[in-house]
């Protein structure tokens, strides 16, 4: 159980992210979570959206450098200490996390090298994996 993520290569300059977000608005694409990280020279912005394929087409048509990949999405109960608990499990089980970011506070995206392996490991752990449908249902509920 994983969710698609789109990564976009961007020079670290203001205005560049805006151009992409405007295109999403125009194409009626709903951004459910994102993270921007950079090395000082260039950055990668990662998005989880309601329609990854269409979003990717929009970006490609703009001439953007993009990559679509899968990430795990973990759903956390909305209680103090949950993030620490889940991260603790990941650390104990030696999962190699490349990066992680949160969508809404109780959903966090976790990028690992080997998704099936991670799923296997997490299956027996007290963590809840979410897929795109779960995210949609959850967000529709609070919207």
């Amino acid at each position, binding site marked *: 159980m994983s969710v698609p993520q789109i990564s976009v290569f*961007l*020079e670290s300059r203001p205005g560049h992210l805006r151009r992409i977000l405007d295109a999403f608005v125009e194409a009626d694409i709903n951004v459910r979570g994102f993270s921007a990280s950079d090395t000082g020279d*260039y950055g*990668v912005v990662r998005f989880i959206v309601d329609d990854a394929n269409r979003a990717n087409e929009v970006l490609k048509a703009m*001439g953007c*450098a*993009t*990559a679509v990949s899968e990430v795990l999405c973990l759903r956390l109960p909305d209680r103090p200490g949950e993030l620490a608990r889940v991260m603790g499990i990941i650390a104990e089980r030696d999962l190699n996390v490349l990066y992680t970011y949160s969508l809404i506070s109780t959903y966090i995206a976790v990028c690992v090298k080997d998704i099936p392996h991670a799923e296997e490991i997490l299956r027996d752990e007290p963590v809840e994996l979410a897929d795109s449908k779960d995210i949609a249902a959850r967000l529709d509920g609070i919207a």
Partner: protein
Amino acid sequence: MTATGINEAEKIDVSVKGAALAAANAGKFDQLPIYDRAIECSSRERIRAIQLEKLIAQVEWTYERVEWYRRKMDEMGVKPSDIRTLEDVRKLPFTDKSALRDTFPYGLFAVPLDEVVELHASSGTTGKPIVVGYNDHDMDVWSDCIARLSQMAGVVPSDRVQMAFGYGMFTGGFGLHYGLQKLGCMMIPAGSGNTERQIQMIQDYGTTVLVATPTYALHICEVGERMGYDWATSTLRVGLFGGEPCPPGLKQEIESRMHIVCTDNYGLTEVMGPGVSGECLANRDMQHIAEDHFLWEVVDPETGVPVPEGEMGELVLTPLDKQAIPVLRYRTHDLTRVVTDKCACGRTHARMQKVRSRSDDMLIIRGTNVFPSQVEDVLTSIEGVTPHYRIIVEEVDGLDRMTVQTEIKPETFSDSFEEMDRFRALVAEKLKSVLLVGVRVQLIEPGGIERTTGKAKHVEDRRK
């Protein structure tokens, strides 16, 4: 059978897309047009004779009519009668940009302004512009040069030419316009900018020839691709480039993506404008100098002494029949080499190698000489980056630091800083092996480096 022995049925129609280049690649140069065969293919002896006759007259004209040159020559103790051979040109004073700037606007004019029919200017980076004027005769010579280079690329009178240069004071727009019109082409004066409209016009008017800077042509190409315009079936057949140097990698890319044949020409406002030399299809790295109109020398940029024929040096030009503003031995600061052997295309006029660097755009980085063209060569050899780049030089803690910004292609991107850093290190390594000095490489997103419609500004030197 025709007089040349070629069967009429075999005659290649160069107005067919791809035909001129195919004929050139097959060595069938007798099938390609030559605008003024009598002049462009005459013997070397005849060319030299024409040059000498014109040089003598030109020096007399200049000495008699332009005080600035008269004073210079008097100071040097040279009289027009001292010019008896082509080599005697070396007795004459050099001219550089400052002469035109110091005499702004009309100080070097040799004819009354009543006789001048057109004025042009080049912007220049500092101070006053360089102003040049042309009388009817000068305009004829100019058009002649343009008609020749257009035919070198396979342009014919039935062509429809879309001018995507800006008109205005810049010599590129009107210079090519008149020359192509003289050839008999239908001119479509689109001007620069509004790229989507440019593509619409190509479609609406059946444009066959595009005049543009190579950078802008690539931009038109990219915008067209994004709009879904099919360049393979487009009427467009030829690109005539100018306004900035066109590196081979960029030209190849435009040719294959737009399905056209592209040539570029060389020229400077100070000696006329575009058209001093033009590229034929026999050797895409060389340009035929219009030798009946220009006397060339190649000199050591430091000493001003001529280098042996075929060796690299600074190009010095003396226009041979320029009436409104005569110019003697103009220092172009462009580095090239010139050869005089006969070209496969049949033309006998000397050929200069395309100018890749200028004596004054050499950068000195921590004591090492670096030319932007070297950076360009390395980048074009790397899959995964586009031909667009920028060089930034700055001083950091008392040391020169050179940064090369290069645009990645969309497919180069992988969502891993590790891999991107590895790619960046590879680019840096390749640059270092050629430049012999370490550079910092910055990867830029596709389209992130500004496309300009004029001279692409590749270097930003922030030192001092």
